[in-house]
């Protein structure tokens, strides 16, 4: 007898699995809407609904099972060729999925069942499938109608050979083969033989593994699909063969001669479906986070060990320290890779959004996805949903023109929204692009002046003008729509991206389209950093941004005529002295180092007393008190126990610019070029 705790655990597992299935099913339906004759997609949809129904029933989600049963019937009609896929059916199914999602999420809590919506969906489904039986409008809350499909024409009675060999994990995963055989008995008369050859001696027998193998002859009028459906929950965990064998019915001979046998090899996986690697396990996120934290602590302790080993002239200690460093680095790489997930799941969710928005806005839009296998840290992915949703909504509402306007402009009536992701060093670039009307820089500039964000005589580059769109309350939309236009979304996008340590860039071509690029760190937990010192303070600059280190001599300072610039191979590089930035007033050394880094504003140098070298940096959050200190992305503990602040080079440049030259109008400019960002007063 299962305890309440065990029951809750299984229910939770069903809820998680159901949510995943619903996401995939939504994607399948949207693809099916574009490819209505694709029988594979129909099959996928049917199987997904069948799984939800069956698992729901098994784990006590009877409402879910009953409601899904009707959808399953409808798609059974589709796959048997008795019902066509139409946009009406797809829309109805999508609406039903929303209901199922709600039921799955609400299980166990007081029902706020939207019974009226569900009955409405069922009624429409009935009309579509042509079933005469209508649901009663007097049903008690929580009850749903069961739709009986129209009586299907009888198949002739045939003999089927079924070879059923359970895999090693079938019993452990909760499947009882005897129940499957009992279900087969309900389809017709059954003769079976069992092989006990694989049962080992009692002392060697694994009691949780099934060793029996059955060969069954089933005489039934059921079709192959119906027989196969008995094993639908077990097909991944068994070797299953279902083949028609010659029967006494003369007009079945032609069917037999043309019917291929269906074999699934390798414990239920089709050869082409078999994964290259093997099995996966599901791990709670909290455990994964805890594991990564511990690895982070280990990295810190390893740094201390290295530091201590370097102080003692002991070859054995140094050798051990180096080995620990090697293993720690490998463990860190491994733990980081565990957190990395492809962005596919996030991208695919937006197919539904684009579909629904296009319908509501009466526009034709196709969503294309590139680089879906690009991997990011799970935490970054979790935070991306809202920003991307805002960007897509904005694109569809403001960027993309109605079909008639597009045709008048010589464009195809169907617009394209492109979601793409690719790696760029230690960052990932995510782009949301459209081929709509683009952004007019003049309109943006004018709006910014009206809002007091910039002065009327402010000189800005086009990129800087576009960046003004990210300011709070900024919107050039002539009217606020349900979709967008309140000017809230883009500011939220900026905040979320910057909270992740990322940045945004907007490019646009009036009449041709707009592209919003999010630059995000691959991981938030550990980075490769460059450790630097200013007096007794330590800082870390991200190694991914760092280009080179040069010496700043007094001669260089003299040659620059009071400007904070350095001449590097003919190029003028502005620099920020961290000593001045952090107001460290001790005497500076005669020779200083400039770390030249790539920033969003161009190349910029950061002047420090000493560059100490590479440092595996475990990022520690400074907490909400330092939330407004944007130029510090965190802190780390060094090997000697000292704290080092992790700098965000982009924000340091921006902050230095704000300190040096606040523009008239009271509002600091959001983005200014690197040259302007450096103080030009004499040192």
């Amino acid at each position: 007898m299962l305890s309440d705790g065990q029951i809750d655990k299984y229910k939770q597992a069903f809820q998680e699995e159901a949510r995943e299935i619903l996401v995939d099913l939504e994607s399948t339906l949207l693809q099916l809407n574009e490819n209505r004759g694709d029988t594979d997609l129909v099959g996928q949809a049917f199987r997904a609904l069948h799984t939800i129904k069956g698992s729901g029933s098994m784990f006590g989600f009877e409402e879910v099972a009953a409601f899904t049963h009707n959808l399953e019937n409808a798609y059974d009609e589709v796959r048997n060729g008795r019902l066509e896929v139409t946009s009406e059916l797809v829309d109805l199914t999508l609406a039903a999925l929303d209901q199922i999602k709600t039921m799955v999420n609400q299980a166990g809590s007081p029902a706020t069942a939207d019974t009226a919506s569900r009955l409405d969906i069922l009624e429409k489904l009935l009309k579509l499938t042509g079933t005469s039986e209508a649901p009663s409008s007097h049903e008690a809350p929580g009850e749903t109608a069961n739709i009986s499909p129209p009586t299907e024409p009888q198949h002739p009675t045939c003999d089927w050979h079924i070879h059923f060999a359970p895999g090693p994990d079938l019993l452990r995963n909760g499947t009882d083969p005897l129940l499957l055989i009992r279900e087969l008995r309900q389809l017709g008369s059954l003769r079976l033989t069992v092989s006990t050859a694989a049962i080992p001696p009692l002392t060697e027998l694994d009691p949780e593994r099934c060793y029996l193998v059955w060969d069954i002859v089933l005489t039934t009028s059921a079709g192959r699909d119906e027989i196969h459906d008995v094993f639908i929950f077990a097909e991944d965990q068994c070797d299953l063969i279902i083949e028609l064998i010659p029967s006494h019915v003369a007009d079945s001979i032609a069917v037999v001669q043309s019917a291929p046998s269906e074999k699934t090899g390798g414990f239920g996986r089709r050869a082409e479906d078999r994964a290259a690697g093997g099995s996966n396990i599901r791990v709670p996120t909290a455990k994964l986070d805890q594991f990564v934290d511990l690895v982070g602590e280990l990295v810190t302790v390893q740094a201390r060990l290295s530091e201590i080993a370097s102080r003692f002239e002991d070859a054995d200690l140094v050798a051990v320290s180096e080995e620990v460093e090697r293993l720690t680095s490998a463990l860190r790489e491994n733990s980081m890779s565990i957190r990395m997930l492809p962005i596919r799941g996030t991208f695919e969710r937006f197919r539904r959004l684009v579909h629904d928005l296009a319908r509501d806005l009466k526009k034709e839009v196709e969503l294309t996805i590139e680089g879906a296998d690009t991997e990011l840290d799970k935490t970054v992915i979790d935070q991306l949903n809202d920003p991307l949703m805002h960007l897509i909504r904005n694109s569809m509402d403001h960027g993309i023109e109605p079909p008639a306007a597009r045709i008048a402009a010589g464009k195809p009536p169907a617009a394209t929204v492109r979601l793409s992701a690719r790696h760029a060093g230690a960052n990932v670039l995510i782009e949301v692009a459209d081929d709509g009307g683009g952004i007019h820089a003049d309109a943006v500039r004018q709006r910014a002046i009206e809002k007091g964000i910039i002065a009327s005589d402010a000189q800005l580059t086009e990129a800087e003008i576009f960046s003004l769109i990210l300011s709070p309350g900024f919107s050039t939309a002539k009217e606020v729509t349900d979709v967008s236009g309140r000017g809230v979304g883009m500011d939220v996008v900026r905040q979320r991206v910057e909270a992740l340590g990322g940045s945004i860039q907007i490019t646009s071509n009036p009449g041709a389209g707009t592209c919003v690029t999010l630059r995000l760190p691959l991981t938030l937990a550990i980075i490769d950093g460059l450790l630097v010192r200013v007096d007794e303070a330590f800082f870390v600059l991200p190694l991914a941004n760092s280009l080179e280190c040069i010496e700043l001599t007094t001669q260089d300072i003299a040659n620059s005529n009071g400007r904070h610039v350095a001449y590097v191979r003919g190029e003028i590089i502005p620099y920020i002295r961290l000593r001045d930035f952090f107001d460290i007033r001790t005497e500076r050394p005669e020779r200083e180092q400039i770390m030249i880094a790539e920033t969003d504003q161009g190349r910029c140098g950061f002047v420090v007393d000493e560059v100490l070298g590479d440092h595996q940096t475990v990022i520690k959050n400074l907490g909400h008190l330092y939330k407004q200190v944007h130029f510090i992305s965190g802190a780390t503990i060094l090997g000697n126990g000292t704290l080092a602040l992790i700098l965000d080079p982009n924000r340091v440049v921006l902050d230095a610019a704000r300190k040096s030259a606040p523009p008239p109008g009271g509002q600091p400019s959001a983005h200014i070029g690197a040259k302007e960002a450096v103080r030009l007063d004499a040192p």
Partner: protein
Amino acid sequence: MPIELDQQESLSTIHLDGEVNISSAVELRSLLVQAVSSGKELRVQVGSTGELDVTALQLLWATAQEAKGTGMEFGFMGDLPEKVLFALKDAGVEFKMVQPVGDRGASC
């Protein structure tokens, strides 16, 4: 308790009652091994509410083979509940697993 081993001077009896399934399979195997190693005649009695799943049937089958190999007497005792009969039929080992013991039992 769904499984109990009753050992007397020359006879061991495994009593199975309620659901005997994968959750009790390890315990059942342990008791069967213990019973077989005693070398005594072994009986299996299934209570009126007894239900056996495929894990139990496999273990009993393996025990039957062990008994046959050592010349030990093994078999079911008493009436088998309907659910057990169905399970034996579904598994296809209904008449192969039981041994005649005294007045009752089916051959294995």
